[in-house]
């Protein structure tokens, strides 16, 4: 689904990503962890062609280069760290329909898609509201809805759990687990990664320093501490534990 080969990104003489290579098979959910400034967010932006980079990125066989960008962005959906950035239209419905309309859908179809996405995230009653009047949890779900309406094959999440209360966080876990498609989730909330992902990449100083099954990677105390991370509580309490997306979810 996603192939990345020697990806490099520099911003104003700072190398944010220094030669990253990995690939994600179709349908896999992968966590991306690392300390602040490791280059996680920049990597996500590069995968959608939103920052200039050198190296090679292929999404579903399609190379991420300027002339393919429109097609690439049909397949890739990003849920940004700050949902306020993602909800820029005056009403929620307009926001969720923004992507489908840009895909070239007719108004009726775009409307149906938008309503469908809002329904699936439990926001049907809020279509005409301004996102300013939503709670943080609702706003995060709304941000997911804006991407869901575009039906991407690759989902990129940037810190999706920030500012969420425990209930909203559990709700987010449920939402991520129910997504179809391939997921790459960058987060400091390592428990969230354990709850939703099968595999985990560790990034530090612009490089991928570890890659493997989520419990093996995040349970490795030495590895975690050498990269300013820690073994998540969930793994300390039950190292055997349940497979991701099997935890009881709120109805």
């Amino acid at each position, binding site marked *: 689904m996603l192939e990345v080969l020697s990806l490099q990104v520099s911003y104003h003489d700072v190398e944010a990503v220094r030669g990253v290579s990995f690939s994600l098979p179709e349908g896999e959910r992968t966590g991306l962890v690392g300390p602040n400034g490791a280059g996680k967010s920049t990597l996500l*932006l590069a995968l*959608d062609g*939103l920052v200039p980079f050198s190296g090679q990125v292929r999404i579903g066989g399609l190379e991420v280069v300027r002339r393919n960008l*429109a097609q690439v*962005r*049909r397949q*890739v*959906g*990003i849920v*940004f760290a*700050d949902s*306020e*950035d*993602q909800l*820029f*239209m*005056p*009403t929620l*419905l*307009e926001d969720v*329909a*923004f*992507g489908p*309309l*840009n*895909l070239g859908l007719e*108004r009726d179809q*775009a*409307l149906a898609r*938008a309503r469908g996405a809002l329904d699936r995230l439990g926001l049907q009653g809020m279509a005409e509201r*301004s996102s*300013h009047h939503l709670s943080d949890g609702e706003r995060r779900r709304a941000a997911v809805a*804006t*991407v869901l309406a*575009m039906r991407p094959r690759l989902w990129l999440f940037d810190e999706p759990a920030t500012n969420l209360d425990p209930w909203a966080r559990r709700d987010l876990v449920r939402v991520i687990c129910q997504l179809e498609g391939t997921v790459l989730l960058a987060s400091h909330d390592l428990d969230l990664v354990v709850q939703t992902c099968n595999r985990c990449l560790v990034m530090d100083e612009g490089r991928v320093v570890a890659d493997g099954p989520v419990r093996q990677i995040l349970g490795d105390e030495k590895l975690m501490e050498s990269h300013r991370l820690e073994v998540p509580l969930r793994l300390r309490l039950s190292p055997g534990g349940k497979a991701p997306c099997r935890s009881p979810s709120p109805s």
Partner: protein
Amino acid sequence: MHHRTIEKLASGTSPVHRLDARVKIILVLAFVVAVSLLPPQPQLVFLAPALLVLVALSRARLPWGFVLGRVIMVLPFVLLVAAFLPFTRGQQVLWRAPGGWPVVFREGTLLALAVFVKGALAVLAVGWLVFTTPFMQLLRALRSLRLPRVIVATLSFLFRYLDLLADQSARVRRARLARSPRLSGRAGWRAAGGSVGRLLQRALDRAERVYLAMLSRGYDGEIRVLARMQLRPTDRLVLVVGVTVLTGVVLGGWWLGGRA
């Protein structure tokens, strides 16, 4: 904040609220043009447009206090335009200061009065439009009347992020007060200036991120929206009647002006 109150008023259900926003915009523009075309004398010519705007406002069932309050806030600007006319225009002296200066002329005073009344009528008409039309409808209507999309998009973002900006500036202010409860004078101004700079920086950063979020959802320079605007027969009727009446007002005004 005031724009929230206005939004609430604007989402009412009166016949005026239900009128197509484009019709309202065209009528208000036509009204402003008609009023500005009226001769400054006799004052009787302003009776018809004043009646029109009052009837229009009463049909909108708006709270008068709020409407007049908003309008009074704009009037000083109109006054400023008219204020110098009595001293600079005309021959017939109404009043002369003991030292021989300044001099108030009759023609200038009448002209100032006319300018003030015209301004006030125009402001009332714009108020009628703004208080009966949700902001988004207004923008959509402006876009469909061919206002450049960059301007429409900018206004739309301003509307969306105004509250956020206000919240942010309140937070910055609180944080500043928490550390410097009694800053005053120069130091106070310097601190306030610093926060304004920070706020601007944050707004620019956000603009950058919003743009990326738009690009990632396929933005290509055209903002596409769901709603379609359709003129009902009532809208067409109101438009035709309105424009006809306004033409009559101008012609009648000229006739009266010619006789005076």
